[in-house]
């Protein structure tokens, strides 16, 4: 019996129908994932092959990086300040206010900076990429590029993905810096924690690999959000509504993937950090 007739038979069975639906969802999800990986691989391969599109790359670096400076500085400063405010309350119960800097900075460098930066950039950049490429797709501009013997993946997707891979970690480091400033202002002048203790505890307990942990994650998250944004836009169909759907999907999928991938990357990176080898997770 052919597999399609088996499926039809299963679909007629009310008990089996939900399982068939779940199976179909899993298959379409995995197919989509495969297509995204294929799209990413071809964008990376084409980025390494001439013609090298340096001007386009610099333009995208400006768009992703310089264009996001303000929102990252704003988010970072307030994240550092509010994280300090909340943490001090908890630590005060154990007379441990002086370690607030350490707690906040480990949280920021390892988790909040890469994740919040990726989410902010997703909202600003991945959506713009999906909209721009989606509009180009539905107005045949991408077809026009192909007809003119220009590879649209190399021209449109590769510079955007490479620019994100470079600029998102830089933005994440900027986030760390301004979050540090926000945390310091909240802890020392506002809450009156001793400056010497505050700084010396940070120097003592925040190591370079905490910063690198966040940095490595930012590279991967930057690649992820740009790939999803470009892929969704590149494959948009169905006019204005299609572009809208592509943008929404790009933001939703990127945001969820940021959290999932953040967990996977954290678990993987901690394997290589001696301090955390004793922790089970």
């Amino acid at each position: 019996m052919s597999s399609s007739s088996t499926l039809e038979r299963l679909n007629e069975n009310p008990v089996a129908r939900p399982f068939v639906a779940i199976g179909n969802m899993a298959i379409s999800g995995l197919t989509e994932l495969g297509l995204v990986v294929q799209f990413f691989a071809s964008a990376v391969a084409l980025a390494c092959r001439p013609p090298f599109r340096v001007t386009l790359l610099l333009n995208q670096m400006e768009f992703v990086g310089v264009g996001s400076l303000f929102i990252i500085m704003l988010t970072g400063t307030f994240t550092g300040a509010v994280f300090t405010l909340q943490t001090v309350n908890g630590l005060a119960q154990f007379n441990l206010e002086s370690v607030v800097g350490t707690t906040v900075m480990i949280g920021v460098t390892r988790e909040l900076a890469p994740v919040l930066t990726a989410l902010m950039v997703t909202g600003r950049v991945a959506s713009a990429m999906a909209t721009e490429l989606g509009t180009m797709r539905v107005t045949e501009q991408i077809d026009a590029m192909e007809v003119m013997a220009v590879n649209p993946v190399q021209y449109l997707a590769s510079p955007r993905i490479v620019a994100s891979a470079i600029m998102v970690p830089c933005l994440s480091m900027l986030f760390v810096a301004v979050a540090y400033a926000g945390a310091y202002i909240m802890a020392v002048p506002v809450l009156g924690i001793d400056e010497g203790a505050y700084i010396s505890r940070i120097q003592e307990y925040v190591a370079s690999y905490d910063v690198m942990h966040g940095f490595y994650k930012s590279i991967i998250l930057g690649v992820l959000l740009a790939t999803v944004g470009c892929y969704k836009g590149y494959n948009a169909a169905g006019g204005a509504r299609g572009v809208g759907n592509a943008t929404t999907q790009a933001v939703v999928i990127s945001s969820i993937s940021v959290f999932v991938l953040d967990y996977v990357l954290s678990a993987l990176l901690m394997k290589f950090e001696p301090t955390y080898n004793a922790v089970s997770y």
Partner: protein
Amino acid sequence: MTDTTVVSVPDSPYAIEVKNVCKSFGPNPVLKNVNLKVRRGKTRVILGPSGSGKTVIMKHMIGLLKPDSGNILVDGVDITTLPHNELLNVRRKFGMVFQQAALFDSMTVGENVSFPLREHSVLSKEAIAEKVREKLGVVDLKNIEHKYPAELSGGMRKRVGLARAIVLEPSIVLYDEPTTGLDPLTTDSVDKMILDASKRLNVTSVVISHDVGSALLVADDIAVIHEGVIVEDVPAKEIRDSTHPFVREFLHTWFRKQ
């Protein structure tokens, strides 16, 4: 000088040959054993109603779609079996004018027209600017290099689209519904543009359209497609004598409206 490493031109009298091409999208057959030849240096119009498969044939000719079965020969070379990089070389023989012009809206007119030159030639900036001026002159447009596509009318956009299509001096120009949605005067100017381009540049042209008037004006040969099947394929002057019932109805409806 343009850096176009294209495959050699054979002796075939046909620029494009579509042989026994079938194409389906999902369960829907769109092209059913289509055979079509485009004579070198002539204008071939493919006439048919919306949804008959005209655009799908054109996308096959330039390798944007691959047939389920059958072959597409461009200058005698089967493009259905070519690897992607060789297909890109074959595409340099083509220029294409899209239905909505498909100009890059983030670029000015000058940047749009110069795009193929910047990608595929080693010309200096001055030479490129000169070439852009020349090609915009061919389509009767002057001093609009700095404008953006959004600032142009539909007819002007089409003409800029043609200037971009011919800037690499291709041997074949494809027109996708060039007169759809245009007023009669602009339609007339687009028809003249196609005739002028054919005459001045001696290119092979393929026009897909459902505009009988334009087809009769610009075509050397006309094929009529209906539900994925070529139902008529004759020299333009013989199309009025067609005995095929669909073609007669199609033409009759148009003439009645006139």
